[in-house]
């Protein structure tokens, strides 16, 4: 009766097309006025951009970065052999040799949870938004939407890009992360990493035929024709969204930046192989090549890139035993290549890299478990080579530095120079704090 996880994938895939693509910030006079009000939120930033690797389904913390080989319970001990990493004291699964070698580049946060065991899959939007989202709460924006709204980026880059797919719509008790109260203008633009002619989105954006000079002339003519239905008082959200999307579309078409970021054809096979390959199970592109495209988009100035890296939704130990040997080495290759590559290029100075899912794996049965999970953090002022937080002998409960999605979001916003208690206008009328909780704590230990 309840297709559950499968239903969720189906909806999000279908709705991937429906969502918008964030626009850049400040155009009309009222917008500028609003901008001033919101600019209060921005303080000097230690980081400028974000690359989020979204591991939906619940990667197993007790088989990856929080191993419990000493547990008295057979079922808790790691499924695969622990190996020593470059960071003294940190052991990871033998399926992650490359991540082990570069463990001095990132921080492992072990003490994250959503604060109640009832979350599991439904924490998807909670993790991405830093606010608990249920059908009864406001449709809080994801961190990417907030960044797109408050900070924005270069006019000719989408402010919020999702590669492969984006979980916009929810189903069966899993609230979607899309349709946020900031409006369609701040939803991510969903793109596929392979910019082949078969990909319509890429075909439109890459546009090799485009003569920029003629295009400029045409758009001026359009301006002369498009005097009707202007939204002077910004009261019609439809017209506002249309204007903003069109402006952004034209800016992107005029600029070569995005075309180049997606064009991997000039790269040597060596570079492509360094990132490795992994098939997206729900119709997205090559997940590892997505990481390469994401790096190139960050280099081109994209403020927030979300990479959908599937699929960690294993139920029970047998699925983990058969699934991990396939997926973990792929992720290990891609993730380590991304961190090393970004470090070599100096991109970790200003870019926060996050890898996380919405839950962990139950220590005893390796089924859905929201009691404990890990978050990987690097760059943008986060510490290099550190383990923060601890869980008990069976990985069931936090014993040190317990923290929540709100705290993580506040820490990330802090690095970006965004005051997490600054207010956004929900639905144009109601002020809501970016992280809508009184007591939030910045997780200082994960910062350099």
């Amino acid at each position, binding site marked *: 009766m309840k297709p559950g996880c499968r239903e969720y994938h189906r909806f999000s895939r279908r709705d991937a*097309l429906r969502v918008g693509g964030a626009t850049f910030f400040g155009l009309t006079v009222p917008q500028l006025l609003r901008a001033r009000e919101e600019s209060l939120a921005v303080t000097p930033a230690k980081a400028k951009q974000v690359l989020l690797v979204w591991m939906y389904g619940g990667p197993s913390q007790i088989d990856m970065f929080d191993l419990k080989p000493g547990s008295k319970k057979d079922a808790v001990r790691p499924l695969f052999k622990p190996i020593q990493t470059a960071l003294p004291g940190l052991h990871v699964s033998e399926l992650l040799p490359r991540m082990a070698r570069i463990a001095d580049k990132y921080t492992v946060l072990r003490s994250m949870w959503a604060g109640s065991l009832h979350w599991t899959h439904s924490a998807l939007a909670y993790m991405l938004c830093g606010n608990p989202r249920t059908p009864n709460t406001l449709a809080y924006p994801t961190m990417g939407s907030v960044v797109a709204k408050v900070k924005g980026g270069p006019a000719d880059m989408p402010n919020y890009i999702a590669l492969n797919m984006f979980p916009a719509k929810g189903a069966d008790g899993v609230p979607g992360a899309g349709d946020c109260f900031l409006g*369609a203008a701040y939803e991510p633009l969903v793109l596929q990493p392979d910019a082949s002619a078969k990909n319509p989105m890429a075909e*439109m954006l890459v546009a090799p035929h485009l003569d920029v000079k003629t295009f400029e002339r045409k758009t001026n003519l359009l301006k002369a024709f498009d005097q009707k239905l202007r939204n002077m008082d910004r009261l019609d959200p439809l017209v506002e969204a*249309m204007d903003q999307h*069109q402006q952004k579309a034209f800016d992107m078409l005029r600029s070569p930046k995005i075309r180049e970021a997606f064009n991997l054809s000039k790269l040597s096979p060596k570079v492509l192989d360094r990132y490795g390959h992994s098939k997206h199970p729900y119709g997205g*592109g090559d997940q590892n090549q997505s990481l390469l495209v994401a790096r190139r988009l960050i280099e081109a100035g994209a403020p927030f890139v979300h990479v959908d890296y599937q699929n960690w939704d294993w139920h029970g130990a047998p699925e983990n035993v058969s699934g991990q040997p396939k997926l973990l080495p792929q992720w290990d290759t891609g993730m380590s290549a991304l961190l090393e590559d970004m470090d070599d290029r100096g991109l970790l100075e200003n870019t926060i890299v996050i890898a996380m899912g919405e839950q962990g794996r139950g220590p005893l049965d390796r089924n859905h478990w929201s009691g404990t999970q890990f978050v990987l953090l690097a760059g943008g002022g986060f510490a290099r080579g550190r383990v923060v937080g601890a869980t008990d002998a069976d990985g069931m409960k936090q014993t040190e530095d317990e923290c929540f999605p709100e705290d993580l979001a506040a820490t990330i916003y802090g690095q970006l120079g965004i005051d997490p208690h600054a207010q956004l206008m929900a639905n144009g009328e109601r002020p809501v704090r970016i992280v809508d909780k009184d007591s939030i704590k910045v997780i200082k230990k994960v910062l350099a």
Partner: protein
Amino acid sequence: MRRARSFTHLCFLAGPAASFALILLAAFALLAQEKPDSGKSAPAGTPAESPSFTREVVPVLSRLGCNAGGSCHGIVKGQEGFRLSLFGAQPADDFARLTREFGGRRLDSNRPDSSLILMKATGQVPHGGGKRTEIGSRDYQILRGWIASGGRLDDAAKARVTRLVVSPAELILKVGESGRLKITATYADGTTADVTHLCRHETNDAEVATIDASGTVQGRRVGDTVAIIRYGAEPVLANLLVVPKETRNAFPDVKAHNFIDEQVLAKLRAMDLPPAALCDDATFLRRLYLDVTGFLPPPEEVRTFLADKAADKRNKKIDEVLGKPGYAEIWAAKFSDLIKPVERGNDGSNNLVGGQVLRIRFYEWLRARLEENTRYDQLVERVFVSSSVEGRPVEEWIKEFQALREEPTKKKDKTPGTSPLLSVYNQRKTLDLYWERDGATGVTGAMQFAHAFLGLRLQCAQCHRHPYDTWQQDDLLSFANFFTAVNTGGSRKNSPEVEAYKEKLQPELKAWAEELKKLSTSKDAADKKKASELQAKIAATQAPFATEVAPLNGAPVGSVRVTSPLGSQASSVTRLLGDKAPAELAPGQDRRKQVMEWLRKPDNPYFARAIVNRVWEHYMGRGLVDPADNLSPLNPSSHPVLLDTLSRDFIKSGYDLKWLHRTILQSRTYQQSHEAAKASARDTRNYARFQLRRLPGEVILDVVNQATGAKEKYPATWMFREGERAVLTAGVMVDVYNFYNINDPFRYLVFGRQLRRTNVQCDCEQGRDVSLPQLLFMANHEEVRRKITADDGRAALLANNDKLTNEQRIEELFLAALGRLPSADELKAGLEYVKSSITPRKGLEDVLWSLVNTREFQLNY
């Protein structure tokens, strides 16, 4: 300072609020929620010395939110080891869990204040749900009193709520005023009680009005909303209308075109919201064409309409446009949105019966009925009470079957327009394909039907009662038993008529079988050929029987069953939605006819209203009940009397759909400008202006073709000829699972085309929002580029026509794309552009590109 005016006080009021209140008269009666009465009422129940568990304690747990879903104890698994029934629907279960689980530590009658539930609720010990009440509060005293008196369970049957009434049912307040609601419960034992302080109180829009725990409402901002009040699991609602302190805005002197406007204007007046002016003629014509036919008005018609000086030219035009084929094409697509011809298919399972041809027939059958303007009740009857044989001689059906079989071979016909090959199925009286869709029978069938024809969402009732709806699981299951008596799908049996016909064929079939046996042993080539021909003949003769849709008249059928996390359930009775008593099932009767009879009752609360509300939403951008597929008693209309009147008159008209369309189109409300009066700019639910909307998915492709003069091309598997309208493809299944890699689906899905698969029951499926990919599509998709620059496209043809000046060419492009002539400035800009282009044709193509990229082109305004 209580100056609330309940409805009964209104007759002493003068001014707009009073006149609006009169309009609400009829609505008043609808608002008290009647529960089926048990009949005999017992004398007064237990005196309230110690609080009653069922009447007070459980409602307090609801009021404090303990038994809510989400992150509270009402979810199926409970929370932190403690589970309550959702909203307290099962008091006896709740009692057992409170008293017996957890070693009885939840309650302590010796030291009641130390009871765990009180410690948790008051936040004295850590509680995931936080602090719910204060020590010593009224709620606290009730819980404490009950625990102290020994914590007993009283008779739940006697305490069943038979009637819950809120008074006043309509509260009108000025901004800043407050007023009180009183809630009275009547129980199965005949007792009544004021339960205001035991209810949970909420308003739908806290910016318009707020309500506190004692039922006191505060008017905050001009607007209307509802208070939803829940006593235990029983909900009831009151309409709240907040009017301005004083009328500040000049109300223009506008004339109502018909009763629609009278209702709309009265409410606007009461709320001090001046309406917009009438739109201009060019806007009206474009709006009318797009909404009714999904096309732009032809250029020559724009010119003549603008020049026409007749006073009644708009009404004449409405009749004329409603008579165009586009009307039936658009509404066949709309009905395909509702009774979906596409099955889930995409996940690889159960790929649709018969495939593409059947889906096209399905659409075409609907189109033909709309073209004939079949009475709506008959249309639904011919869809729902359908069968293959339709009471005709079986031979006729067999002949039809064979004719249908030969149809697809004719698809090479290249003539555009509606395929002649589809005329056989069109002429059938009933749409038996309805029953061939996935999940057309049983519980899913009932949900599909309720969504399509009753405007109800019953999905939640599969497992439990939805918090904001009235349907119980038993309502759905009993209704679903009507949907079991149709023979369809894999294990179908034939109707008695067809069985008799088969019987008659037996001797012949037997003879053929014997001949085949003889031939099969022969080695002669001629015999082999004969054998295979004979084999085909046998197969063709038997083929119809496996496709027959027939009612199981009178044959016993089992009850439907649902399995949810709460277990597996069935209902042993067959009952119509909202009826108290089970239906009587006469032997030999087609159960579906009983449903039809119920739909046709003039007081059926859903059937006429559902279609009236959907047609209204199509033209006005927002349903009188919004969302349009949620006619729940707990989702009230913004204009209840208007909806009732329109529905009643629609029935009176003989369920005449064209009457309904015409009446709405003729209203001033439809013909308003999109530019609101300043004071009404924020209004979204009172029709103070025409609501802007993006053109729907298939329509936008059609108008791009119309403006550019291009012909749409379809993938071969779609079986559509070049140049046919995109709207006609409403039945085509688009493979969403591959849409990332295929261009064709992208072009249809980017603008929110519905998938029309049976497993999604929601009007929300068709997205009407604006997205960046859509703007990119218009600006730079290769499909649009190709159409603008085609050699036989509009721009090229105009450029090649030597008889025209550039001025005329630009005017033609404006008329074709925007349905209006260019202004002087626009013409000047266009002329300069064309002059400075490499060739006039290149210049005109860019003019056309600019026109299709305007807001004006992509919106209906």
